[in-house]
């Protein structure tokens, strides 16, 4: 046996150190539909860049598919007893022109998908017709910051100025850092003519996140420029995992979910805890049915971070998958005191399970007390305030509405100058 080690070689150390999935293929006996045996290329190992694999002597093809869709590949011959390091690097044609932007070039931002459907989906002629603007385009927008529990109406508007000292221009947008707190945080992007967009931030406890506010040029003629938001969890593998899922690349997402960098027990242990990385990992393990990998650390996630809504949603869904429905409902009901989950997975799990438990059958009546069912019905009813306005097509929870406690899809038509909040256009040329 020999070992295959892997080495990413990108321009930036940041990108080179992201522990992304790799696949190893070799020649094996395969079967044709006529049941004939022949030798052919076969996937024999899935691993990640940080994990070496044992292989027999032979020729192997190693590939890594990046969240952007770029594929790195290398062919390697392995001799008996000799370990080999496989270097994976992008083709010269694919290299990012800017080292600083390499991460977003090969991983990209987390999708919030069509945040302003009303204007975009409308006939552009109805908006602009043959009119031409004789002035410059308006770039005005405001960014508001909130924290707290929306469901319990225990939230406050924050001064987003604390974010501005990290703000920097990047391409056609502005990025800044949001430090984690022991509270749910979200931002609201306000611009005239569009429903204000509320975006839950994947920052909690010691997990920070990065936010990018970007110009978005519509493909439709005549539709004015809008702004959109991308969020980047601090944990790069978690970030890549969300991107794989956004792209529908389930093979790589499933592989990334089992990477050592996403091990929930490790992420929650020690001083440098990463609850957001653990949350993203847990949602993915639930989505990919790897219940055995969740062990009992979903309980730790719920207990150790008492303000984190996603801990309750994850614990609830984990119990439900195990057929422990009374404990599952108990966990979901904790959302009332914690607030809206940061990720759409959490809200989707809660809605589906509450619907299931509220279907009156003799079985549910035997498992749940009338009081539990009453509380379940009340929580389900509260969720209905947000669920019509939530974008379930994105991974990070987002919804529209100027008053985050009373969401709607009404475009903002007032003067932006009257809105408190950060004006990010100040950072643009």
């Amino acid at each position, binding site marked *: 046996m020999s070992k295959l080690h892997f080495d990413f070689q990108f321009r930036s150390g940041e990108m080179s150190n992201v522990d992304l999935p790799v696949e190893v293929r070799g020649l094996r006996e395969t079967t044709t*539909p006529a049941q004939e045996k022949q030798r052919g290329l076969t996937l024999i190992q899935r691993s990640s860049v940080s994990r070496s694999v044992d292989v027999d002597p032979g020729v192997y*093809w190693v590939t890594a598919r990046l969240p952007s869709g770029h594929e790195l590949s290398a062919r390697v011959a392995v001799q008996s007893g000799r370990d080999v390091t496989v270097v994976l690097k992008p083709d010269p*044609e694919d290299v990012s022109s800017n080292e600083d932007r390499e991460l977003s070039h090969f991983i990209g931002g987390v999708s919030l998908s069509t945040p302003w459907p009303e204007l975009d989906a409308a006939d552009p002629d109805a908006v602009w017709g043959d009119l031409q603007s004789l002035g410059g385009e308006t770039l005005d927008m405001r960014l508001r910051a909130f924290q707290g529990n929306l469901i319990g109406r225990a939230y406050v508007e924050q001064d987003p100025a604390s974010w501005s000292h990290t703000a920097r221009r990047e391409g056609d947008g502005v990025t800044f850092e949001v430090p984690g707190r022991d509270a749910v945080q979200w931002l609201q992007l306000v611009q005239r003519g569009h429903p204000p967009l509320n975006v839950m931030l994947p920052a909690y406890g010691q997990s920070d996140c990065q936010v990018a506010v970007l110009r978005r040029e519509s493909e439709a003629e005549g539709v004015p420029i809008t702004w959109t938001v991308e969020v980047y969890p601090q944990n790069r593998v978690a970030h890549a995992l969300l991107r794989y899922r956004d792209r529908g690349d389930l093979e790589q997402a499933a592989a990334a979910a089992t990477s050592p960098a996403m091990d929930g027990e490790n992420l929650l242990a020690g001083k440098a805890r990463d609850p957001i990385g653990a949350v993203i990992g847990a949602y993915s393990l639930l*989505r990919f049915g790897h219940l055995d990998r969740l062990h009992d650390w979903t309980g730790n996630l719920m207990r150790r971070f008492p303000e984190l809504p996603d801990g309750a949603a994850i614990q609830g869904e984990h119990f439900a998958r195990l057929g422990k429905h009374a404990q599952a409902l108990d966990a979901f009901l904790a959302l009332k005191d914690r607030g809206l989950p940061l990720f759409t997975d959490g809200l*989707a799990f809660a809605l589906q399970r509450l619907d*299931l438990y509220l279907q009156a*059958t003799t079985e549910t009546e035997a498992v749940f007390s009338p009081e539990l069912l009453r509380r379940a019905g009340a929580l389900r009813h509260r969720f209905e305030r947000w669920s019509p306005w939530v974008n*379930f097509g994105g991974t990070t929870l987002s919804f529209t509405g100027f008053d985050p406690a009373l969401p709607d899809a009404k475009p903002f038509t007032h003067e932006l100058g009257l809105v408190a909040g950060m004006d990010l256009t100040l950072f643009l040329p």
Partner: protein
Amino acid sequence: MLVYDNRAAVGQNPGLHALIVGVSNYPRLPSFPEKTSLSGPPTYGMRQLTSTALSAYRMYEWLLSCRELLPVPLATIRFLASPSGVETEIEARLSGFGGAATLERFQESAIQWRDDAAQHPEGVTCFYFAGHGVERNKGDQVLLLEGFGSPNAAPLFHAVDTHTLRYGMAPSARRPNIARRQLYVVDACRMLPAEFQKIQTPIPTAVFDVPLPGIDDRRAPIFYAAVPGARAWAVNGEPTFFCTALLECLNGLGAREPDELLGASQWHISSHSLASALSDSLLRQEQRRLQMGGHPADRLNFQVDGAGEDFILTNLSGAPVVDVDLIIDPAGALPHARVTVIDDETGQPVRTFEPPLSPHPYRDRLQAGMYRVRADFAAPVAGYRSRERAFRLVPPRIPPMKVRVV
């Protein structure tokens, strides 16, 4: 209605049980170009369709065509369709095939389908629905059946929802042996009618009883043809864009090599590879939709919910053949470069081109797999050097085989 029954041959062994439903003919809805009525029962701006029953039939044909390649023997197909006149003209076999996609028949077929699926945990189920759909709350999905729009029924009486369908298929004390591999495909819009936000949310009919699940160890992805709040699209008299993309993936675009980890000893399509390929295939359908005048903001998209662990959907009869462009960069080297394409698995050349490679780029068709491309110069040419590059040609993304010789 059962249109394929191989249960006697399958016996006690695991089998694949399919329920396929396509609704185009909604007698209570106006047809094109009639305007939707503002009086009478709410129809949420919907009209009759002319593509979805045909889509269901194409799925039925695909399943039959690959029955020798499925991971378990094909046991049953239940098929319900309410086709339009346009579709029966195109596909005469649709006329009277199966049964009409009414609520009663849907419930009857679904219960029988579940009973069959409950016979063996190693079994596989397949559910496909094409027709009108709505959401009650964002994130769920209601399927509208033939009687939708009836003035004598609640708004969603002739409708069922996917959550009940999927939860009702979960392992439970009553059905401990239900098939653990379940594929769901919903080819319908996911718009949330504005009316639903003004009234108490209407309730669809329960397709069957839903016992509380036991340990849910299924692999049961639902592929939705639209993301929440968005539309799915089709062209009059053709299978829907999503169905076209789906079939393209199932016929080879979602192909993967044999996979020891998955237990696949041949080329195959898996639930995860299907999801990965659909993005690319839908992109091609999107280009076509745009060429036909579709609005860019209504972009085709899809969503997979409850993906679960990967599993084999079907094997393939061999490695698919893919189109690939062969490019020498810069083109100035073409008069001097001898180009060889080598099958990297066998080490044997499969193509040799004496200079100049023409036309350029050279469009070739090769079996999917690993290749090396070598560009050689018989005599030294200033500024150019021989070069060899490896390529993995596996769908859906086939990069050009571009060799840079400077």
